[in-house]
Every structure is written in C-alpha cells, then in structure tokens.
C-alpha cells in the first residue's frame, strides 16, 4: 500500500517533461472532478469553473488509501482552493497538496493545461 503512495510525486510546471492528453474538457463536470488513468496511476482532475482554473492531484486519499478524491466536493478555504475527501472530509489544498484540517501527508499535485478543448496533465519522467 505504501508503495502505491510513493508512486505519486508532485510535479512543478517548470519541470514538466511530458504533457499527457487526458480527455476533452466536457468530460469534466463544472466545479467538480473526474479521474484520469495514466500508466497505472490515477489522477483526479478538477474543473474549478468558478475560479476559471483547472487542478490535478493524486486520486488516492492518504488517510485510508482509497482511490476517491476525484469524487470529492471542491471549494475554497480562506481563498485556498481545496478538495474534501468523500470518505471522511479530509481537505487538501489543490495548489500545494497540503492537508488543511489535520496533519496527514500532503498529496501530490500536477500541472494542468487546456489546449483545443483538451485537458493535458503534466508529468516529469
């Protein structure tokens, strides 16, 4: 299980070596998320329409190691965009991956870009 956790490492935009073409934008609900598969990894992608931004992070909640974050509600805490895990409402910053209402490990976040109505997720390999 721990090995699953270790497969997710945060990627900074400037370190992206590969932009993975995930799916067309309309596949992602407004102000909600969906899950993308990339090489055995599960990435949660959020279409934060109210902010006009896109975010991506690991789908795995580090609390009980379940692949569920893409099904969580998104929102904002004092301006910090976040996702709340649907299982126990642990909230993580969508910008930094930090756990906002406790002290779990941070989750890995990934850069997202939109080109020609397609969602791309950035990885560094």
């Amino acid at each position, binding site marked *: *299980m*721990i090995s*699953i956790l270790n497969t997710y490492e945060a990627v900074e935009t400037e370190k992206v070596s590969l932009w993975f073409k*995930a*799916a067309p934008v309309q*596949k*992602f*609900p*407004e*102000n*909600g998320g*969906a*899950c*993308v*598969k990339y090489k055995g990894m*599960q990435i949660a*992608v959020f279409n*934060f329409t*109210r*902010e006009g931004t896109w975010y991506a992070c690991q789908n795995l909640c580090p609390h*009980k*190691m*379940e*692949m*569920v974050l893409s*099904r*969580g*509600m*998104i*929102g*904002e*805490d*004092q*301006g910090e*965009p*976040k996702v*709340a895990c*649907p*299982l126990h*409402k642990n*909230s993580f910053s969508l910008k930094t991956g930090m756990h906002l209402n406790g002290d779990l490990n941070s989750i890995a976040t990934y850069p997202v870009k939109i080109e020609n109505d397609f969602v791309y997720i950035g990885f560094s390999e």
Partner: protein
Amino acid sequence: MKTVIVVGNGMVGYKFCEKFVSKVDQASFKLIVFGEEPRVAYDRVHLSEYFENGDAERLSMAPREWYQENNIELYINERVTDIHRNSKTITTLSEKTFNYDYLVLATGSSPFVPQINGVDKEGVFVYRTIEDLEDTLAYADKIKKTVEKPKAAILGGGLLGLEAAKAVMDMGMEPHVVEFAPKLMPRQLDTRSSKVLQVKLESMGINIHLSKATNQILGNGHVIGMEFGEDDVLNVDMLVISAGIRPRDELGKSCGLKMGTRGGIVVDNKMRTSDPNIFAIGEIALYNQMIYGLVAPGYEMAGVAVDQILGMEETVMAAEIDMSTKLKLIGVDVASFGIPFMPAEKGHSIIFENKTESLYKRINVSHDGKRLLGGILVGDAQDYNMLLQMYLNEMPLPKNPENLILGSRGGQDMSFGSAMDLPDTAVICSCEAVTKGQICCSVKDDGNESVKAISKATKATTGCGGCKPMVDDLVKETLKSLGKVIKESICEHFEYSRQELYDIVKLRKIEDYNSLLDEVGKGHGCEVCKPAVASIFASIYNETANRQATIQDTNDRYLANIQRNGTYSVVPRVAAGEITPKQLLAIGKIAQKYDLYTKITGGQRIDMFGAQLHELPLIWEELIAEGFETGQAYGKSLRTVKSCVGSTWCRYGMDESVTFAIDIENRYKGIRSPHKIKGGVSGCIRECAEARNKDFGFIAVEGGWNVYICGNGGANPQHAQLLAEKVDKITATKYVDRFLMYYIQTAPPLTRTAAWLDKLDGGIDYVKDVVINDCLGIADQLDSEMQYLVDTYKCEWKEAVENPEIRARYTHFVNAEDTDDTIEFVSLREQKMPKAWV
C-alpha cells in the same frame, strides 16, 4: 527568605499552594509540601468517576510538573511524624528534618470507623482514597468469582455513603445502605425528602435500611453479614464503611496545640492555631466549634491562611459559613441551602412533594414572607443556583413565593428574574469565590465570551462545577446586553443560518447554487454549504440530486452509499419492510450476478454492498425492471418507516400498522431534509416497531393513534415525545406533515429532529402550538408545501438510468474503459468484504 511548609497534599493543601504562588514573590518565600499518599493532590469529590474511566490522572488537581514549574519542593509518599515547635522544625517518617518559618497543617481527615465487633475482618473497607477504591475493587472481583449475585453493605447513609453505594453497584454487587439515623443524608434532608430519595434509590436497585444500629460484623475471618438486633441479620459479602470523618489532627495533639474536645485543631478567624506560626486549614480546622467537610469553606480557609502569612491581616474567615450543597447523586439531584430544616417559630415552609416523579421541594420563608431562609430540593435542583443567590443576597421574594418551586402557573407573575438581576457582589462560584461582577467584567472588558474562556480567566466552574449553568446564562446575557448576537452562519461563504438561506431561496426564487453564492454569499463555496444548499433546493423545488450533481455530498452525487474501499452499496425501497417472495428472488438474483455482499438493515430492508461505480446503473436498471425504486439510503431524507405486523397477523394488534407504515413511507419517500428521517408504526403499545426512537412514530391505541416525534437512536438516544393522542390516521398524517415541513424549514444543517427539538424555544409544547393550534398561522402553507413534495416525487435512479448524460457519470476513468484495479476483496462467511485498511 522565609520557608513555608505545608503538611498535606489534598484538595485544600493544593489550593493553598495555588493561591500562594499566584500572590507571592518567589525570591522571598520557599514553599515545601508533604503528602502522605503516593500521588499528587486529586479531586476527591469526584472519586466515583474513577470507576467510570479508571483514570487516576484525570482526577489530579495539577500534574507533578506544575509543582516544579512553580518552584515548590514536593515530597509525596512522605509522612510528617513530628513537629518541634521550639526549634521550628518538622521530621518525617524517613527521619529527614526541615526548618519552617510558617507551618500550614492541611492533613484533612480519615474515615471514621466505629468500634464495632468484627470491624477488622477481611472484606471491610473504607471509602476515601484512590487506594481504598482499588482495594475494594480487587476484593469485589474476587468475590464475584465465587459468589453468585454478591451483596455489599455500605455503613452510613450520608452523602459519601450514597456515592459509595453507586460505586459498589458499578462493581456489579447488590448495594445495601445501612444508616443509624431514621433518614438518609441526615445533615441535608428532612424526613419527607429522605423518603422521596429513598423510594427513588430503591427503584434503581439500591436497598436502604434505616434506624439500624450494627451490633457486630459476622464472619469467620472474612465478612459474611451484619447483625443489628437478635434476629435481625443482613447477609453481605463485603462492607464499605462511610460513617463520617475524623480530623487527622494527631500532629497537632502531639505538639501540644489547643484541640477541640472531640478532635480538630482550634483556629481563630485568621486560621491561626494556638501557636501563631502554625495555621490549620480544611477538615482538621475547628472553626466556630465546627469541622467543615466541604470543599468551598476549605478553599476559603486556604485563601485566608495565604493572606495572613503574606501580612494581609484584614482577610479573615466569615463569621458564618454557608453549608449549602448541590450534587447529583446517582443521577438524582439533591440540594439543600441556608437553613434546611427550620423550626416553626422562625418562619413558614412551603413544601411540594410528588413521589411518583421522585420530586420534593421545600423552601423556608420568613414570617413576613419577604426573605428566603433556606430549603431542600430532591429530584430537580435546576433552580438551586437562583434560590441560593436569593438567599445569600437577601433578595426580596416575589408576591407568590410558591412560584419559586412550582413555576409560574398562568398569570403575569414571573417567578425568577434573570441571572443579570443579581447584585454584582453575588458569589456565583462559591468554590473559587468568583462574583457575578467579575464574570461580567471578564466578558465585557477582557473579551472572554464563552464559559470555557471565563473558567480559564477566573477559575469559576473549576471546582464542583455546579455554577456552570449560571455562568453560561451570565455570559450569554452579558453578550446580549453588549448587542452581540451569536450568529449561526453555516460557513465562511454564507453569513446566514440554514433557516435564513431557506427563506432567501424561496422568496427570491433562486434555483441554482452559483446564483445563490453570487447573490448573497462570497467566495467559491465548500463541502459544508454545498450540500446544505442542495438540501434546501430539494426541499423547496423537489429537484433530485441529479441536476446539480457537484454540490451534492458524494452519496447523493452517485445515488449510492460510499463504503470503505470506495465501492458503493445499493438499497432499493422496501416500504415498511413488506416484501414478496418474488421480489426477494429478484434481489437475490441480482446480488448474485454482481457478486454483492447482502445484509438485512436495521430499517427492514436489504443492503447490497461492494458495487463499483460503473456497475451502479447496470444494477439499478435490473432492479427497476423488477419493479423496485430507489430507497434513498444515501440521502439526508426519509429512510424507512419500520413496522410491526400489526392486527393483520398479530393477536395483540390494535390496528393495521403495516398498511399505515407503507402509506406513510410512500408519502414521504424522496423528501430531502436537514438530516435523515426515520419513522415507525406499531400496532400496539408493545411497540415492536420501536416507533418511539424514530423521528416520527405512530402507535395504535384503543380509539386511534398516538403520534410521537423527535425520537432518536444513534449516539444520543432519546425517546420521542407525544405530539397527539388517539387521533385518526388522517389527522395523525396531517400533524406529521406539518411537523416535518416545519423542521425542514427551521433546522440547522445536519441536525436530527431530536437535537432540533432540544434547542427549540418552548420545546414540544411549542411544536404542538405550531402544528395543532396553528399559532403561527402557517399550517395551511405547511400542508400545501408538503403536498407539493408528495405530488412531485420521482425515482431519481429511474431518471439516472434513462438519461445518457447522467449515466455517463458512472465511470471510474474519463479516459479509459478500465475499472479501478486497486479495489481488493477478501472472502467472509461465503460472501466478500473489502480488504482491511493498512
């Protein structure tokens, strides 16, 4: 530098240290403390709590480090054996010698063990220290292994004795309280109130034996019984003695201090003994020829001794010490204040007694009817604080003083004013001597706006805790007087309560979350306000969770209950638990096909676990084809209406409970509410459907249905309360329609009906007024709003499987047909379960 030695590390000894270090410059005094027990001072008043949690640490007055931090030299497990007044030294059991400038004796008391033949037998204990409790507990455990239904006697029916009876009962033994006097708690209660308390305690399984003088304790080596008269014997397996206290004054005696004839070290109002360098405080101090066995006077004595040593000579002990007490004894309120028993020549008594409810209230009033002199409360001591304050502050009595104990019965005469009417000098917390003025100032000037903050700042409520309700009132009232309103906004994005948002949505006809946030909120929302607002939309427009899916909690978003490994469970509606064999077969077939774990739920239906996201529409398609519809097990909505078989099959049934339950479940199905709602219908008062722990319940009785509301199982079980009696089905339904609608419109988010009623001003009577008497004039509106919800019901799963766009949400990946390969199951009793969490 001067040295102060404190002998005794009990509650009063500790309080001396606390007050001393808070006032003194540490360079000029050195404080040395000796305690004979193996642990630092603990709260003996709440000793029986040790049974409930077994945590001795939790009873500590302060941790060991506290003494260190305050430069107090602490020696525990070290008994002081001699005082040498000439050389101003003391010696300890381990023959260490210490010098003092001032000596403070706070050695407290020991249990009084009467000289009864056989008192030294095995199985005879006292009740005073944690060690006593541990010994008693160990013996009780031993007895329980050899004796079936063991009995234990408690010698002494005073305050501590009854506490000990509770402890003994918690140990699993049958308690027998044996008291010499003809009444319980002879110091606090009169004969009639003792009788009321006795009936109550006996109903709880505590046996009471009054007017019993014990001749001898029977048994060969270990106790087997107590003999009172010749043929009067009580067989017991253990005996706990709680027959009062004796001051631990041997140190004073041996060094020649002036003693009372029956023990105790004589002190003046400065707490000084006959030696001006030696003080005595707490239960060894004989003040006004009395030993005071209560915490509050002990603390006051500690304060006086501190000030005297520091040269503040004007601080002295009050001439009269208030012995008022209030306690919860085995769950029963008992309180007495002022002069509890009063001779007729001093005043009149007003007495109210109701044995069926275990209530006794007595107040003693001066002859001219103007002053309260004292009183006794058993069963309900809610008004104790107010009565005590009226007595202590000599406040004028209302015109009809009986209202003080009976409540105002019609008319304009309010019995109590608010706590704010008390003078500023009124002592609210007598343990810590905190006045009303200090509390209100702390709220106003220092911004301590909660009971917690007040207790940190002033120490009020940290002693016995009895003043908590009054401190709470003072904080709230003071805040109110400052114009501060405690705003119940639902989260940082909306500065409104749920009820306010409900009205806004309805009046402005707002239909989606983003518009509401733009119009009356701020920011981008969160997981608190989104589902709360979704619930409001559902209650007003009856829209299903499918339209605004991303503001729903995950269960509503996918119309299924998310379970441990991120899979879901599926529950079709089985109204009232009535199911045909054909339906059972259909469920069985489908569960088998999709390899689902099945279990009967507490709500009389069948739950199928372990479905993956992409399987949900497939499963539901088949269920719907078999005639099922969604059971909303995932929603904050009506779950089930549980029923017994009623008069159709049951030989006791008074009416058809199944039919009624099916009708009701179908009536309210799909209705979203602040929290889940459960119902029950029982065909007779045997109540097999457990309707009285449901949010609403109907019970058939001779001549109609009784309607109950606001019951709750769960973490805080609560019995439902009677809304109406013997009404017909139509009326019963109408009342529940209105009640549910009113609850839906006014409750805060995620508040069950029981918690809602607890907070509702006026409680059940107010709900009756709204629902039955229509005091708000909204009954018609509630009726039509409910009817709209009933008429516009649709199965949201049918909507989901028939709509390709909604159906498309049920995939794990947006870019692959694959399923989640991290989900693992293991087998369990021929079914499956999620692999355990790491």
